[in-house]
């Protein structure tokens, strides 16, 4: 009888490959749709630009599509826990931690790699002059998808299948809109100091609230924030806000730390929950 060592990379790989085979169709569709969107947007809007918002924005809908696919895939954890399917895998030496990690690997990291690699190929074909400059942003896309995956994994590990999908769709579709609006308000918040408080609605307590809100939104979508930050730095501001917004690098670092923390919480939950 073979004994089990924990966690085993081999078992994680076996489980990930098994799940990937079953979900290949949805990934293939996502890859095709997002690549077509990216190519069309770049051809129409950004092919002549150096690195600009116009060149990067086409990636936002692609990321949204991927996020919805990721949420749908990760909600499978909740479904498999509820239905008892997970028992069949756990009964065959797979540990709870390995199960969660393999799902995260499949549904979080694999799509991130897929998006980054296919987008790079598409950009290299339709606008090769962008490839070098866009390279920096690819890391942001990767972290963006990672933190998103960690959030939905945490919710799914509690067994909430529907909530996982709803939250995933909400974050996927609306987080960049929320970040844009909040950053816009913040950009012009400094006006209240220059002129009278009647000019801008943002007085200090509200100002801090907006700062906190867009920082949270930025943490949840570092790539969107990176793109918006370009816009922020290139915008004329008669009076800059009293506290400068965090740099994208800070946000990315914090997002990575938050991803690790969320994943840790999800692992803790899956280890103690009844299956």
């Amino acid at each position, binding site marked *: 009888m073979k004994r*089990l060592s924990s966690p085993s990379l081999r078992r994680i790989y076996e489980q990930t490959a098994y799940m990937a085979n*079953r979900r290949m169709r949805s990934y293939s569709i996502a890859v095709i749709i997002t690549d077509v969107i990216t190519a069309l947007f770049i051809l129409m809007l950004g092919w002549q630009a150096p690195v600009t918002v116009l060149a990067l924005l086409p990636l936002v809908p692609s990321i949204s599509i991927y996020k919805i696919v990721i949420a749908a895939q990760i909600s499978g954890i909740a479904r498999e826990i509820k239905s008892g399917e997970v028992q069949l895998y*756990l*009964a*065959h*030496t797979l540990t709870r931690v390995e199960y969660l990690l393999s799902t995260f690997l499949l549904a979080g990291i694999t799509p991130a790699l897929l998006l980054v690699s296919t987008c790079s190929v598409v950009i290299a074909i339709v606008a090769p002059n962008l490839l070098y400059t866009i390279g920096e942003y690819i890391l942001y896309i990767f972290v963006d998808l990672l933190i998103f995956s960690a959030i939905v994994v945490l919710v799914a590990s509690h067994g909430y299948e529907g909530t996982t999908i709803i939250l995933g769709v909400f974050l996927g579709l609306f987080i960049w809109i929320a970040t844009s609006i909040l950053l816009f308000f913040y950009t012009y918040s400094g006006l209240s100091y220059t002129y009278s408080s009647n000019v801008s609605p943002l007085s200090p307590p509200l100002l801090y609230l907006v700062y906190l809100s867009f920082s949270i939104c930025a943490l949840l979508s570092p790539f969107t924030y990176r793109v918006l930050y370009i816009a922020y730095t290139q915008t004329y501001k008669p009076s800059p806000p009293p506290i400068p917004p965090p740099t994208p690098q800070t946000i990315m670092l914090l997002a990575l730390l938050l991803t690790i923390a969320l994943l840790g919480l999800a692992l803790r939950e899956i280890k103690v929950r009844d299956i």
Partner: protein
Amino acid sequence: MTMIEFREVSKRFGKVEALKNASFEIPENTVTAFLGPNGAGKTTSMKLIMGFLKPSKGAVLVWGEEPWRNESIRSRIGYLPEKPVYPMDLTVEDFLSHLAGLRRLGRADVERVSRLVGLEKLMDRKIRSLSRGYLQRVGIAQSLLGEPELLILDEPTANLDPAARREILDVLKVLHKELKVSMIISSHIIPELQELSNYAIFIDKGTVLDYGYLNDLWRKYSVETVFTIEATDIETVAKQLIEKPFVHAIKRVSSGTLEVSIDPSHFKVFEALLTEINHKIRRYEFKTANLGDLYEKIVKSKP
């Protein structure tokens, strides 16, 4: 040696207490019948053994370790859940191969278990196309991967028609006979476990009523024990046996066969007597008393 031990285990799901201070032991090399009505706590107990649930109170020990903490214990156990949920989009072979892969087993092991349960001709079929009986075989096949020391089968014949139920029981009998594997089988259909088990745990409303070797339980609850004896000279054998005070009745079932009912507390004495007169006996068989009667007596004896 004790294989499984429950020490005052309670398991609560919200307001429902599925198991209440349950204590019992299961020794090695037994086929244990886990008996009780629906909702008695059988599935909860099995999941506790597998480490899928954490006891709210008390300790569950499997080979001396807590399965909840030590997940490696599961590598020694084969498990068939009560309502297994299979990946319906896969073929039987792909599904079993994946589970075998997790255990570092190869194609030969998949073929072996599929032959054992009679699935070898259906390996390329999608799981969704299988009948209930064959689905249950898939469940048993997966539980046998890796030659487990213990098989835990939760209601293996539930929702099956009588023919499929018979087939599954036959498969289990063969497995026990050929592989000598310990089993814990739960069922609320008592007679079907009688053919297989030599140990039993009786449970109702989350409380363990009694447990032990069936031979001991027959005696303890004075359930009549029946032997079938094939003798060369049944007249003489019958005369010899009827003189004994612990023999309750002798019935001639065919020209060379007797059925003898005895007081269960004299089980061993009776066996010694049969050994003494073995020159007149072709063979004898301990035909167990009715497990249903035993269950009723145990339930009635508890407040």
